[in-house]
């Protein structure tokens, strides 16, 4: 088996296990109050971490670039209650323009 196929199988199995473990072992159970609080904290923390690292980091270093400008445009639109799709389109357009100008 080539390294490529081995990677396909191992990454595939590992990812399926990571995604499926929680639902397999804890699925369908109503969580207690304590666990509920933990799960409610996950969405804002994870989304904020994804936004921060994909806005202000490039690979392993912190950096502001065209993508950061795009996300800033989206943040501005969202602050004025623009629909999400407009914010996403603006982010892409601004990032593309800044990149083309650079």
């Amino acid at each position, binding site marked *: 088996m*080539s*390294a*490529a196929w081995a*990677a*396909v199988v*191992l*990454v*595939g199995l*590992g*990812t*399926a296990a*990571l*995604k*499926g*473990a*929680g*639902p*397999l072992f*804890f*699925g*369908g*159970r109503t969580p207690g109050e*304590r666990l509920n*609080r933990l799960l*409610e*904290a*996950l*969405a*804002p*923390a*994870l*989304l*904020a*971490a*994804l*936004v*921060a*690292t*994909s*806005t202000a*980091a490039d690979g*392993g*270093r*912190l950096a502001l670039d*065209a*993508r950061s400008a795009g*996300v800033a445009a*989206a*943040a501005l639109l969202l602050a004025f209650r623009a629909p*999400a799709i407009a*914010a*996403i*389109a*603006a*982010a*892409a*357009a*601004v990032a*593309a323009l800044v*990149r083309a100008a650079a």
Partner: protein
Amino acid sequence: MSDADPSDAVLAGARAAAPIALVVAVFGASFGVLAPAAGFSPAAALVMSATTFAGSAQFAAVSVLAEGGSLAAAVAAALLLNARYGPIGLSAAPALRGGPARRFFAAQLLVDESWAIAAGPSGRIAPRRLLGAGGALYLGWVAGTAAGLAAGTAVASPAALGLDAAFPALFLGLLAPLLRSPAGRRAAAAGAVIGLALTPVAPPGVPIIAAALGAFAGAARS
């Protein structure tokens, strides 16, 4: 989103995910172009998109191998990036019902975007919405990969189109309503700070999983 009208909820999820599924398709196409250059046969690239269904991890595995890295390094880099699906799967667990196999396979539709779209302001997953959003994103990713493999050359570069800014913009839009509660603001601030602080010093993927664990720790103490 209630489950009173299941087909409506599936459609609503698919509709909410449709624009981002197009963006995902462009990234899928660039994966389809990149993978053969890294020694992946078209079949291997397509099977990877259809079974792993996690963009950043697939790009990581392919580029480690393309740069002459070992199989172990490629698999480790990919799985580290996907470590966040542990807590994400856990957060979806209460909502996924049915037998073990059904729960396990429903969980495979979890990617950052489908999870964020299917999670309401309470952070609880609406399973039908996950099915619609995850299904739309899955189609975009696999069809995009196939298109990239068929074209063999990049039709459009995602970066030149600014599409790499689309994902943080989507996440920001889904984050905004969660910031109305003090607990949501605390968790978001902690997540952003942990993610940024660890980025220069930890391997890719670790800052995100650390942010998730930090949020768990913070909520457990409060």
